């Protein structure tokens, strides 16, 4: 099976600047190589989707962008990931700052068992913002951006857990937005939601991409097709390491992909 190693694409002209560049990334869990030979250029203020069959390393790749993989014991990273040209895995890099600039929204909404207000204010408070007026402003702005304000403006002091599933997920998005990230990572953000809530989150993503670079992992191909500008297709090789098979404009991936494996996957004939 030939594997095209270099899908390294410098930013296409007129297509937005490259916000994050991955070069020759490999990720190991102990001796096991989970990701190999990943090269990827994520365009600024666009939505990039990562698709592929279960277990192909999509989440591992996503968690590399904000160094959440550091939390897994035995995890080792080779290669580099550059945010605005600076390698986030360079020694001496401030991980806390990376995690502020690269926010994350998880598969299952996970609001803290605190009030809605305190959930969103958690991030800013971490960074030393304590004045009520400042926090009020940030909280309101972030909840507005997450298209949740009308629904919660009168109950900011109720528990975050009292909201519905879709609302909780939007709360988590507001929480991530409150620290003004530059990149937002979304790990299957709507997989636990009903179709209407899913569509609302997708509409929200389209709004957010005006200001943020969004990278989303999804096993729902139709969602990737609907929402993203670029799609990266991943698959595992014979050594069970995840590799990037194809990376192109979403329109191309879903109407005339170049690699047969991609074609098999999007037409549902894979496996």
């Amino acid at each position, binding site marked *: 099976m030939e594997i095209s190693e270099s899908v390294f694409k410098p930013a296409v002209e007129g297509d937005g600047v490259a916000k994050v560049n991955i070069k020759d990334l490999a990720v190991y869990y102990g001796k096991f190589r989970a990701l190999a030979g990943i090269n990827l250029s994520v365009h600024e203020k666009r939505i990039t989707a990562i698709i592929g069959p279960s277990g192909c390393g999509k989440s591992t790749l996503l968690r590399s962008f904000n160094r959440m993989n550091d939390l897994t014991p035995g995890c080792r990273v080779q290669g580099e990931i550059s945010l605005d040209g600076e390698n986030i895995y360079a020694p001496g890099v401030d991980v806390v700052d990376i995690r502020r600039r690269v926010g994350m929204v998880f598969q299952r909404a996970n609001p803290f068992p605190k009030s809605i207000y305190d959930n969103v204010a958690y991030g800013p408070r971490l960074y030393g913002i304590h004045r009520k007026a400042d926090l009020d402003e940030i909280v309101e702005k972030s909840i507005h951006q997450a298209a949740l304000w009308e629904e919660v403006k009168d109950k900011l002091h109720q528990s975050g857990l009292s909201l519905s599933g879709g609302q909780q997920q939007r709360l988590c998005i507001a929480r991530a937005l409150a620290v003004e990230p530059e990149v937002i990572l979304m790990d299957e953000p709507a997989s636990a939601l009903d179709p209407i809530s899913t*569509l*609302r989150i997708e*509409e929200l993503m*389209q709004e957010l991409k005006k200001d943020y670079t969004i990278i989303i992992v999804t096993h729902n191909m*139709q969602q990737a*097709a*609907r929402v993203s500008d670029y799609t990266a297709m991943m698959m595992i090789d014979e050594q069970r390491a995840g590799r990037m098979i194809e990376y192109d404009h*979403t*329109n191309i991936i*879903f*109407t005339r992909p170049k690699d047969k494996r991609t074609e098999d996957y999007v037409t549902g004939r894979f496996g």
Partner: protein
Amino acid sequence: MRKTFESEIQQLKDELLLLGSMVEQQILDSVESLKQRDIEASRHIYKTDAQINAKRYAIEEQVMIAIATQQPMAHDLRLLASILEVAGELERMGDYAKGIATVSIRMGDQPLLKPLIDIPRMAQKSADMLHRALTAFINEDVAAARLIPAEDDEVDGLYTQVYHELMMFVIQDAKVIERANWLLWVAHNLERVADRVTNICERTIFIATGEIKEIGSSSDEST
């Protein structure tokens, strides 16, 4: 909801309208160039036809992308499928206009058998029908779409007239048979344009109701 999809649909409709007006113009220009014996203008028709073909394929690609990425259902699906159909119809109408231009070039310096009256009238009528049918399609105006096919009778009537007139010419002087043939061919193309306009109206009704109903004209189609 689905703002992106909505704007994609609107874009496609706009493109289709644009294609339609290109074809309309093409029909009128081809007949005008024949009438005026303007060979250059006739040759220009060929260039424009290439643009029409390119635009048709561009629309097709956009529709495919919309279907692949937006999973349209029900009305949306019927609309997109119909846009594909209509783009094809328009392209073929463009080919009819090109055929007319071919006749004009072939005729070269030879004089017309008579000053063209009915043929330009057919062109006007067909182009006008096309314009209104497309407008009805874009606006999903079923009422208007139901009324337009009946006007095909008028075009058919003009065709019959032209046919008989040309036959008379040939009977009187067998040597004019080549030119008569060509002119008949022009009339035939224009009559086909009107027929295809009927198809567009059927599609408009299909989008709204989900049913394909052939709207036959009152005179038989025996060309």
